């Protein structure tokens, strides 16, 4: 979609045009957008955990994690929560509208290295499931490369559980995958577990022969990490993703650094022992 005559320029800051081919209302304030190239196919390839800058020209641009797994060959998905100017506008778009996307940015979960062959424990809260879903589906689609997969996912209410259909139909029915769902408060029609994620974590009392991957609101991450340490997990066993305001996405505009590391380029995936080394800015 770039028409630049003699001056061919597909700089990393220049995006591709993407077309929205499907929109699913997950929860009252979360929609999943399926994006393809206008001529068909995916815009670009990525690895689980990577993000992309989604832009509505004239309104704004934001960094969102790509929630679909790279094993999905047909399309790319973003699960976006409505909470600001840009996301509000995105939620008002329809199938067939075009947006711009640039990426993939950031590092990714080490699915081909450190995580291979291991038992995995995913802990997510609310919209925090979005980046982890990319990893979970990758692991499920390459099932033989990974050990047991435990997924602990909690949200404010049953209506705020993202991708509940996929969880019930695909994840719960895959061998070696255990799903633990919880909601914050009692709700009519919900007969599952009720309680905050950190509390549920202690209840289940996971064994420490796993690698942990956490994503959710900062306060949840804090308490979950505490809980995991009490269970006996060490800092180098747990991964998370950090989020800061980003503009360029490639470690040049100077905005998203914590100490000497840029979250957009050296992250957003960090292991907790790496986070311990960073200055106390976040």
């Amino acid at each position, binding site marked *: 979609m770039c028409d630049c005559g003699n001056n061919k320029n597909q700089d990393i800051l220049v*995006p591709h*045009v993407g077309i929205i081919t499907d929109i699913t209302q997950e929860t009252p304030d979360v929609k999943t957008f399926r994006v393809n190239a206008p001529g068909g196919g995916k815009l670009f390839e990525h690895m689980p955990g990577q993000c992309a800058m989604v832009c509505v020209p*004239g309104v704004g641009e934001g960094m969102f994690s790509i929630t679909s797994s790279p094993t999905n060959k047909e399309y790319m998905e973003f699960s976006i929560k409505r909470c600001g100017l840009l996301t509000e506008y995105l939620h008002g778009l329809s199938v*067939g509208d*075009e947006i711009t996307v640039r990426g993939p940015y950031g590092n990714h979960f080490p699915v081909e290295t450190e995580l291979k062959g291991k038992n995995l424990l995913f802990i997510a809260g609310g919209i925090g499931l979005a980046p982890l879903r990319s990893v979970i589906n990758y692991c499920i689609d390459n099932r033989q490369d990974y050990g047991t997969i435990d997924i602990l996912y909690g949200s404010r209410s049953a209506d705020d559980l993202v991708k509940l259909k996929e969880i019930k139909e695909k994840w719960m029915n895959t061998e070696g995958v255990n799903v633990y769902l919880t909601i914050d408060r009692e709700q009519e029609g919900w007969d599952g577990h009720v309680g905050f994620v950190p509390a549920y974590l202690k209840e289940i009392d996971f064994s420490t022969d796993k690698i942990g991957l956490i994503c959710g609101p900062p306060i949840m991450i804090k308490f979950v990490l505490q809980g995991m340490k009490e269970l006996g997990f060490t800092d180098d066993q747990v991964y998370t993703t950090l989020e800061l305001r980003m503009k*360029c996405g490639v470690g040049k505009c100077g905005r998203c650094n914590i100490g*000497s590391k840029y979250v957009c380029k050296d992250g957003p995936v960090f292991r907790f022992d790496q986070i311990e080394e960073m200055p106390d800015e976040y």
Partner: protein
Amino acid sequence: MYSIAKENLNSLYAAIAGSYDLFMPIKTAGQTNYGFWKEGAEGDIDTLKTIRSGKDAFFPQVEQLYTVNREIVPADVAAGDDAEKAADTPVRTKLKVTPGKLVDQDFVIFGMRACDVRAIEVMDNVFLTDPVDSYYKSRREHGIVVALACHEPEESCFCTVFGVDPADPSKAKADVATWMIDGKLYWKALTEKGEALTAKVADLFEQEDADAKVEEEKSYIEGIAKQLPNAELSLEGWGAGKTDEKFKSEVWDKVYKGCLGCGTCTFVCPTCQCYDIKDYTTKDGIQRYRCWDSCMYSDFTLMAGGQNRQTQLQRFRQRFMHKLVYYPTNNDGMFMCVGCGRCVEKCPQSLNIVKVIKAFAENK
């Protein structure tokens, strides 16, 4: 060595401007800043420091990244054969992205001081590392740097502390080195690009054996540099890997209080390169551009959920940690400050990097 009398410099500028865009210090309304030379402009290489630095040449304050043209089409056209999908909303948005033009013609940056040339090296490490910024790269490739020695360094200068030599531009990564001595400009090409430029204007020059004269000038400048008040400034305790030591220090609380958070230091600094990306909606499309930003601004890291640098102390600390610790950590110990002294001269509240370094040294 080539030389040209000061009175004839205007013809030199005109000759260069005939073949290239000439970007040099120009006096406008009493102040000297870099600008494009035109017939009638007052080129000024006497003023030691331009207010804005030479980084404008490669990293302009505003840079067009791309333009997006929006077209609203009827949904049945957009959806193709999928009439069912078209039923919901009557129109769809179609986008067309046109990348910004890259610089594709050579241009000359004239009269760049050694500190500014070093600053370009510093910025190269940011913009030319993977992923390469093509806007910066095209300017860099087409820019021909003519460096100028500093005949009379000022008291705010402390470039020698960072290993920059104000006396010998040939040591810097420039294409041509020049010295202004006794009313004559001496010219020495250093690279192929420099030779090509020299060839275009050679007929304006005289040739003379000026090696001895230049050596004398170099010694004179080096002598002055040693007398500058901050020549002996110690960088001990700063550099790669010093994050833990410096981040939690109580000294920050003592030095930041006067800071207005205005951004002057960032904009006059030759190495500050933080930028913002914004949209400008016009009737001809939406221009996406990038512009200088400052980590000193209160909204620099602002997020919907509350930002992570809420106090001026944190922002103040961020800027200086970036210059003296984070950048060296990521770039083999190279400092991001080049000792030009612009922040010393221009801060409205008289804060500057020298005061920060000295405050830490005193509070060991």
